[in-house]
């Protein structure tokens, strides 16, 4: 393989009053098994040492390198150049605050979301006697919780979200899936009322327009729309409590949600 790649990169340094947003072209030779991680490092090492971008694990597990690759949010580390045309266009993720060039501030965004949804197991943390046997859990439930814990907070789902583009306070798919993770977890002692306060509004589950892009671009293939649906039904049923007969609510709330199945 001996393609010559034309890589066009968004450049802007918000700290420099003379800097204007623009695209800059770089030309490099493609190697076998080249990923955008390798390509961008070659550009920084050989062409422009000031180029800003983020990588950490470069193995698809830390989520640092989310960027818009030829118009689509994705992780640069496991994007191979051979799967792209010779002309590759890279932009930073939208929604998040731009730090410079391809680098955006996902850390502050996710910390804020985590604080708003109180993203920790709510129980009496001091109650544990660690010399005693651990509390038991079904393995199938542990696996279900882990499936949602696989989120790497790369921000691709947020960048691809129509609602997030319009309202800066929208929690987005990753944060709602995180709520679902705690809702699923019997160690978390919050009730429906507590969750309603956190995500039962337009900043939460009711803000979603159902465009489904979040799940399309998730590099970890997390079922984001399912989680949003489960949370939305749970909270919608809660909001009509007292209006709709209790028997109907009970029936509906047990439909398809593994959490209730485990508790029963």
């Amino acid at each position, binding site marked *: 393989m001996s393609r010559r790649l034309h890589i066009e990169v968004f450049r802007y340094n918000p700290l420099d009053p003379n800097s204007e947003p623009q695209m800059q072209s770089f030309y490099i030779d493609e190697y076998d098994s080249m990923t955008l991680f390798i390509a961008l490092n070659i550009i920084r090492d050989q062409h422009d040492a000031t180029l800003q971008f983020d990588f*950490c694990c470069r193995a698809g597990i830390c989520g640092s390198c989310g960027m818009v690759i030829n118009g689509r949010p994705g992780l640069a580390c496991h994007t191979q150049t051979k799967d792209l045309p010779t002309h590759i266009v890279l932009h930073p993720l939208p929604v998040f605050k731009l730090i410079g060039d391809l680098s955006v501030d996902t850390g502050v965004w996710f910390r804020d979301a985590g604080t708003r949804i109180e993203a920790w197991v709510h129980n009496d*943390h001091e109650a544990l006697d660690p*010399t005693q046997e651990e509390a038991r859990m079904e*393995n199938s439930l542990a696996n279900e919780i*882990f499936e949602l814990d696989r989120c790497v907070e790369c921000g691709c789902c947020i960048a691809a979200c129509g609602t997030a583009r319009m309202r800066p306070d929208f929690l987005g798919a990753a944060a709602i899936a995180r709520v679902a993770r705690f809702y699923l977890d019997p160690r978390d002692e919050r009730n429906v009322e507590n969750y309603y306060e956190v995500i039962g509004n337009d900043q939460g589950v009711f803000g979603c327009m159902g465009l489904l892009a979040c799940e399309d671009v998730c590099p970890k293939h997390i079922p984001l729309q399912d989680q949003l649906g489960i949370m939305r039904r749970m909270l919608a049923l809660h909001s009509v409590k007292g209006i709709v007969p209790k028997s109907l609510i009970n029936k509906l709330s047990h439909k398809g949600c593994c959490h209730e199945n485990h508790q029963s």
Partner: protein
Amino acid sequence: MQIFYTDLLCIGAGLAGERVAVEAAKAGFNATCLSIVPPRRSHSSAAQGGMQAALGNCVMGEGDSPDIHFADTVKGSDWGCDQEVARIFADTAPIVMREVAHWGVPWNRVEQGPATYYKGGKPFDAVESKEKHGLIHARAFGGTAKWRTCYTADGTGRSVLNTLDSMCLRYDVNIHDRTQAEALIHDGENCIGAIVRCLRTGELMAYYATATLIATGGYGRIYKATTNAVICDGGGQIAALDTGLVPLGNMEAIQFHPTGTVPTDILVTEGCRGDGGTLLDVNEYRFMPDYEPEKAELASRDVVSRRMQEHMAKGFGVKSPYGDHLWLDIRHLGEKHITTKLREVYDICTSFLGVNPITGLIPVRPTQHYSMGGLRTNKDGAAYGLKGLFSAGEAACWDMHGFNRLGGNSLAETVVAGRYVGQKVVEFLQGNSVDFKQSALRDAHMKIDGRIKFLAGNSGKESAIVLRDEMQDIMMDYVGIFRNGKDLQTAVDKLEELHARSMSIGLQGNAIGFNPEISLALRIPGMIKLAQCTAFGALKRTESRGAHTREDHPERNDKEWLNRTLAYWKEGDSLPTLKYEDASPYFEIPPGERGYGGGKILYADIPADKLRVPEKKSSETAAPAEDKE
């Protein structure tokens, strides 16, 4: 310049840093974590396998105890570890696994009834007991007598890090991400914080702290081929070494893993070979049986790495733009096996390499993986040389790993040491107050500010990128898996020259605000120093122990080398100063054979007063409940 005040400053927000911070915050202290990346991106997140703790819940772990875990750890270390620390570790590990379970880690659990497991590629049946149903499960790992590695599928690091990070939210730990500590603030006796560079704006900030913890992970990036994340550049070790007072322990102890992928050096699990995968050379010839007729690909990790390197040196490597490599062949295992039992390998190959392992060969080579060395601390996690300075995790040489660490022990160490050292930090905070001396802050600030001004002035001619590449090549070529006096001397000489050149680095670009080039330029001189400590320590250690293999000194020499290297760096020197201390204050298990790896051992006479069993443990570190039956 902005100045922050905090009780505890954790440099690094991976598993160890966050665990210590949580301990301090729970005790009511103000804790602040600095992190180059958002904390959930820490390299801890990349750990897949699991955490060793002797819970003994699963059928293959029956009868396990901290005593057996302790013995495995000591043997694994090739008797280079501090046995007092290994004992604390083995006793505390089960408690910590239960604790993080209470906080939300979704450990895989025991399911009662018959189960099919694999050993050496062959399936076997076992029955999990009803009494243990729902308790924490464990999987097999190398070098362990029992199955004791607690895990969450193939994402243990990710799920435990998520949980600890959520505890940081819960207990209001301050997280300052995109920051890099550049120098410690100290007055020659006490460490009182750090000078920190903001990786958003490039500005310098000062943090005054009563206690400072270094938990920045390993320094694998001094090697070209490493499984470590790009942030594992040894920043914490460099800051400590630069004080001239704090020594680094056993820097020559570097672990290589046989199957890092080429080009991006991502690890593919040992399970490939365990299940029957083979290693092939440029002619697609299976060479391992020629070297190791009995065990072939299933010899121990260090042995396989050595043989691969040896074979490539003979010219049988596959040439590539990324250097020589060999092939890992798992095609014969078939599609079903590869997409189920080795799903993670399948994903790595297809996503990162563009190779389908069902039909194609996987390019692999031995790759730097883990640094057993680091900031030498006592058993409480307190660094030598400066009061108020602590270290935990891979950054530290707490020293339960000695010269080789077992899989699953490093990830467990992060949280076990984090909890234990965290308690010691709390005791320190309760009993100490410090004088935040302005002169100390000014000295540290001037040092870093001066270096940045020099770089920005662009009077230097050397390129940080070129120096980095040369350093990484020297480490690969001369301080790799096989070491000998001649090569090591070459490395020491070449690195000394690089160190001198690193004093005159200039920049190519001149961006305002944050500039990634300055980050590298600031880091490289320190990384070269770490490389020098590694190479010089390896040159002087004329024996083979654990991962340190000297061709010219193949025997393990307990008579002369049952000790730990301490590397100091005195200001103005071009080489580290090496000192030595006893490997362990006492030997609960006297030095013996490991039962694998082979090799000649020159035994030392251990004085009788050093052969002893420690005092009875406190209830906090008692054996797990199930051992009482």
